[in-house]
């Protein structure tokens, strides 16, 4: 445990604060929704839960982007692909759960297959009626894609802008593919009209509260995992790669495999985030693959502050709340505000809003700060004694 916390030089108070707030949310939401009577103004409606759930899953996506962009300098414009694949894997499970309750009452085939006259379930749908199998796929499919794609890309030393562009091509190609009705993923409509998950009714607030708490837990866990990574020596190697790739190579580090591992790990997190997103939102369709989504995810990170994990998450929450609010309050002009936000942040706040914070400036040292913090000294002291 100590290692986990001391992992990052600076032991990061920001992270501590973030975890506390996350816990607070995970407690407050059930209370406000289940205990507070719906008559009260303080009651949190299912709509509110879904919103917060969405923010948190997006936060997780932002985390995965920040891990490779903020710490390893690899800008992936294809993370929406991992997110969506995770989402689709979960969606397939939820579709199979509908069973005979579909409008055509077909016990095996989802409705969209029935009215396209499909006779039998395509092979890649097998097994998705088992939750655990689906769960495995949620992580494995994105991981596999990241592995194959990354292996090719990094091995042939595709870097920087080129990498960004081909990741964009990747997610774009996947979007086109999933739009095809012949693919067996419901085409443009994707999956919707889910009934229940593990037997719990997806139309009850209770289920959504649980989903939200699970999401919060997953977010916390992946946050700690990411921090453990960037805090480890591997994390320092990764930052070294970001700053001087060839020099790191001359120190004898297999740069490519470091990048690959990180990319796969990050892809997995994105996939899990997608899987948590789908049941709370109630629909998954190909437009989730749209390159624009990947770009937005990157922007959340930039707004929050790349290179600080909790900053990325905060960015995701903030930007999406801004979207929710503006699309409601100023439907006609919200794009101006959003666009301006992106411009201003990138030009004037290269370190994001977190960069404004005293505590962040302290934590940031592990990436671009100025002086070793007491904690690290502590670590050394300890190991000295050992």
């Amino acid at each position: 445990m100590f290692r986990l916390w001391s992992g990052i030089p600076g032991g990061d108070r920001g992270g501590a604060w973030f975890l506390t707030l996350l816990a607070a949310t995970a407690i407050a939401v059930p209370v406000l929704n289940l205990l507070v009577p719906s008559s009260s103004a303080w009651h949190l409606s299912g709509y509110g839960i879904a919103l917060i759930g969405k923010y948190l899953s997006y936060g997780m996506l932002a985390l995965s982007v920040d891990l490779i962009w903020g710490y390893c300098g690899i800008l992936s414009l294809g993370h929406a692909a991992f997110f969506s694949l995770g989402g689709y894997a979960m969606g397939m499970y939820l579709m199979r759960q509908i069973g005979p309750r579909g409008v055509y009452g077909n016990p095996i085939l989802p409705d969209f297959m029935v009215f396209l006259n499909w006779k039998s379930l395509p092979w890649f749908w097998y097994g998705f009626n088992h939750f655990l199998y689906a769960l495995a796929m949620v992580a494995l499919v994105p991981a596999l894609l990241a592995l194959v794609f990354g292996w090719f890309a990094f091995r042939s030393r595709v870097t920087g802008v080129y990498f960004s562009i081909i990741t964009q091509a990747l997610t774009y190609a996947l979007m086109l593919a999933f739009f095809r009705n012949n693919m067996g993923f419901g085409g443009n409509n994707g999956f919707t009209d889910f009934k229940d998950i593990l037997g719990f009714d997806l139309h009850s607030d209770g289920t959504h509260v649980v989903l939200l708490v699970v999401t919060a837990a997953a977010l916390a866990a992946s946050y700690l995992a990411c921090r453990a990574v960037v805090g480890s020596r591997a994390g320092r190697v990764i930052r070294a790669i970001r700053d001087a790739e060839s020099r790191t190579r001359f120190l004898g580090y297999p740069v490519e495999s470091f990048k690959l591992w990180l990319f796969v790990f990050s892809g997995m997190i994105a996939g899990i985030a997608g899987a948590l997103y789908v049941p709370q939102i109630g629909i998954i369709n190909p437009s989730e693959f749209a390159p624009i989504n990947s770009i937005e995810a990157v922007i959340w990170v930039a707004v929050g502050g790349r290179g600080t994990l909790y900053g990325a998450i905060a960015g995701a929450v903030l930007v999406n709340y801004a979207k929710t609010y503006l699309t409601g309050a100023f439907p006609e002009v919200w794009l101006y505000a959003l666009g301006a936000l992106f411009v201003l942040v990138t030009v004037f706040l290269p370190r994001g809003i977190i960069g404004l914070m005293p505590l962040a400036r302290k934590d940031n040292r592990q990436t671009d700060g100025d002086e070793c913090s007491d904690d690290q000294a502590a670590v050394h002291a300890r190991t000295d004694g050992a």
Partner: protein
Amino acid sequence: MNVRNKRLYLEDLTVSFDGFKALNNLTLYVEPGELLCVIGPNGAGKTTMMDVITGKTRPDSGTAWFGDDYNLLEMSEAEIVAAGIGRKFQKPAVFEQLTVFENLELAWTGSRSFLKTLRARITAAQQERIDEVLDMTGLSGQRGSLAGILSHGQKQWLEIGMLLMQNPELLLVDEPVAGMTPHEIEHTVELLLSLEGEHSIVVVEHDMSFVRSIARRVTVLHEGQVIAEGNMDKVQNDSRVIEVYLGV
């Protein structure tokens, strides 16, 4: 090849960049534990030689062996490092975003694989070694500062320090004192001399006074070839050297 237990064998190396021969049948040996200075005018092929040794550049012909059992021409950069050849670049290349301590830590010999480094922790031995090197390079005071804010000289030392962390049998040091104050140069000299014996060291340098102050043996390169070898005085009196290099 017959065993003559030298540290480094470079034989008949030829490297040409579109026509221009950077190395031209260069042959050069380094004894175990010796401190060899390589001098020569710009374009003599000093850096190219370093590149060949560290696997950055592949020669058109010739052989390069490290000890009697490593054929450098068949090894990747990483493998060469692992085999025990460390290099200090002409321009100091340290990780400016990492602290001095972390720079040294990353240079530590040990498993380079992702999973290992993921679990790796600073052992007492490493701690000692790092402190030791910090002392040698006189950077103990800056152990916690980002390498980016060090002075030019300090960066040079840090980089030498990183070499020492790798504890290589062969150090390649490229212009260590470029842009150093006399006082810093003095310190660097001590540093290098203190390393002599346990490591073989190849120093490439322009600064004559510096070379004289450290060199036991000097090799003069010109147009990719060795034109003179021996101690400083011998070399300085060599007519060809005078003509091509010192130009007096």
